[in-house]
């Protein structure tokens, strides 16, 4: 692919803050007119990558170009071609919404009258006209985010950086922001969007790059990422630890069976889930193992995310929620939960970390 088609390019970006290696060699590219979703947990390095590409931070190593300009050697040119909506509120709380937008426009050499016209246009587009002349202090979180987005679009820049534009927003505000981002595509804008939400990346991005601990751990279209972790997942909770259990279910699953520290929870990836619960119950019964709970789940995008970044999350949420699911579904043994939204507890997170390695490997296939 011709290099000129990439509006944003990161090559081996490295950045260290004190003892923290924020970026350990990150590569990605965003073709003109597309949206790239940069996905990862807190502290993965997303914001650092954005700060380097928007000229706010200087990389220790590697190279970044935006609209064909080098972010270190031509920061002025880069700034002329980008709009930034940063994660922290970066607007002036003492100015009105309109004053904020006009200020950004004027500082971008727009000229006062064209800055005013553009501000009115954007305020209308983001449904902020009524609040336009109120001081920002009185804005809700959602209104601030929309104004931040509007500020980033003042000069109609060809490249936009949106750092977690919907974090902390209610669903209505979120969908408004999504609509605004989708509209940009019609104008041929190139967008780098960072997010912690998979559904957001799924809904908006043409391509997703997953980062964790300052490295890219997966790169593909949303579909490719889901395909790559197509396998379902099995989790069994035993009444008491039993060494025969692993041997009993090993033939039924793909890959290794992971046993929790207390010996009661077994988890593994499985290729097909039809009739699986029945087979597992029979196999365990035959081995003389008593079972409290069996769960077979289809992967959601959240699972892909957790499986890729699993090790990181397990550190924070250790096997605390083991008992959570045991009250339900012992009788029929199967809880088919295709949509794990919002119900992630310690148990399922921990379980996915167990086979995270395997799935991360399959993700490598996507990358090449």
């Amino acid at each position, binding site marked *: 692919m011709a290099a*000129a088609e990439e509006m944003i390019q990161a090559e081996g970006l490295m950045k260290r803050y004190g003892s923290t290696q924020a970026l350990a060699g990150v590569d990605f590219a965003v073709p003109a007119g597309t949206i790239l979703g940069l996905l990862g947990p807190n502290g993965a390095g997303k914001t650092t990558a954005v700060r380097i590409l928007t000229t*706010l931070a*200087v990389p220790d190593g590697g190279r970044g170009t935006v609209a064909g300009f080098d972010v270190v050697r031509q920061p002025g040119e880069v700034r002329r071609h980008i709009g930034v909506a940063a994660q922290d509120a*970066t607007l002036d709380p003492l100015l009105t919404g309109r004053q904020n937008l006009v200020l950004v426009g004027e500082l971008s050499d727009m000229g006062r009258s064209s800055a005013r016209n553009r501000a009115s246009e954007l305020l209308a587009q983001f449904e902020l006209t009524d609040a336009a002349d109120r001081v920002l202090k009185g804005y809700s979180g959602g209104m601030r985010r929309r104004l931040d987005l509007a500020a980033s679009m003042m000069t109609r820049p060809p490249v936009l950086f949106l750092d977690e534009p919907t974090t902390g927003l209610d669903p209505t505000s979120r969908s408004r922001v999504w609509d605004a981002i989708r509209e940009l595509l019609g104008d041929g804008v190139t967008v780098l969007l960072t997010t912690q939400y998979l559904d957001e990346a799924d809904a908006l991005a043409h391509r997703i790059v997953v980062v964790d601990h300052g490295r890219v751990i997966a790169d593909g279209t949303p579909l490719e990422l889901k395909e790559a972790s197509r396998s379902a997942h099995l989790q069994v909770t035993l009444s008491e630890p039993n060494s025969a259990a692993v041997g009993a279910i090993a033939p039924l699953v793909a890959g290794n069976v992971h046993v929790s520290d207390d010996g009661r929870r077994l988890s593994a990836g499985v290729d097909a889930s039809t009739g699986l619960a029945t087979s597992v119950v029979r196999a365990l019964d035959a081995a003389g193992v008593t079972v409290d709970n069996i769960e077979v789940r289809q992967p959601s995008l959240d699972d892909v995310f957790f499986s890729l970044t699993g090790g990181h999350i397990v550190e924070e949420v250790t096997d605390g929620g083991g008992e959570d699911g045991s009250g339900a579904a012992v009788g029929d043994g199967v809880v088919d939960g295709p949509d794990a939204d919002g119900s992630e507890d310690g148990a399922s997170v921990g379980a996915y970390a167990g086979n995270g390695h395997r799935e991360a490997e399959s993700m490598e296939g996507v990358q090449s």
Partner: protein
Amino acid sequence: MTTTTLMPPVGFSAPRSKGAVVGRVADVWAMTRRNLVHISREPMQLSDVTLQPVLFTILFVYIFGGAIPIPGGGSYVDYLLAGMLALNLVTSTMGTAVGLSTDLHEGMIDRFRALPMWRSAVLVGRSMADLLTSCLCALIVGITGLAVGWRPGANYISIVGGFLLVLFFAYALTWIAACVGLNSKSPESAASFGFIVLFPMTFVSNALVPTQHMPGWMQAIATWNPVSAVVAGTRVLWGNPNPSGRIQAWPMQHPVWAALIWSVVLLAIFAPLAAHFFKRRTTE
């Protein structure tokens, strides 16, 4: 292999870069207006330059006025007003330190840094806004003074010159305040600059009382304190009583020159230093 040229999106034309000077002036003006809006939105900040001068002038004139004899004669209110102007303008530079520190601690600075603007406009715009509020403050001090009996004894040009002398010195001081603001950990610690440096600096001078009654060592400090030169210079320009003229030291004998030299030297040292600190604080 295809070589597509980068197609700019609909409606975009890269912001033209104006002539460097025109662009910089425009950026400074935009930042100045922003800071003026701030001051108007924070009543407490505005009271520093509106209410405080009125209050201090009245309090000093009526409380100390009768008790302080002026060596060589003259009324205390005529003596006081130049000192009152200096006191208000010098202490209000604390606002520069607090304002810059606040800018750095809020995310706003990141937005400025990602815009194609002249970066130092953040600093210069701040100092311009503070200069304009200083002018307002000077006006209020002058009007209050006239109301309580201050009468300058010089022509208009000389009177305006007296105001400009203090304003120039205060402007130079804003760059010291900027250095403090750029190096302080929080806006609160930047505010302490006022109490630790600015108030003692104004009080240990000839601004409020004649220095002849101070202990010898303190009198020496007061004689060489730049505030004393500025205040004495203004008294000379205004044609008001200036007992410091009896002190045999160069700055007290040539107070206008001493005030100008002090101001230029402070400006020459601290403006570039502030630019350096600003760059250091905003580089990562």
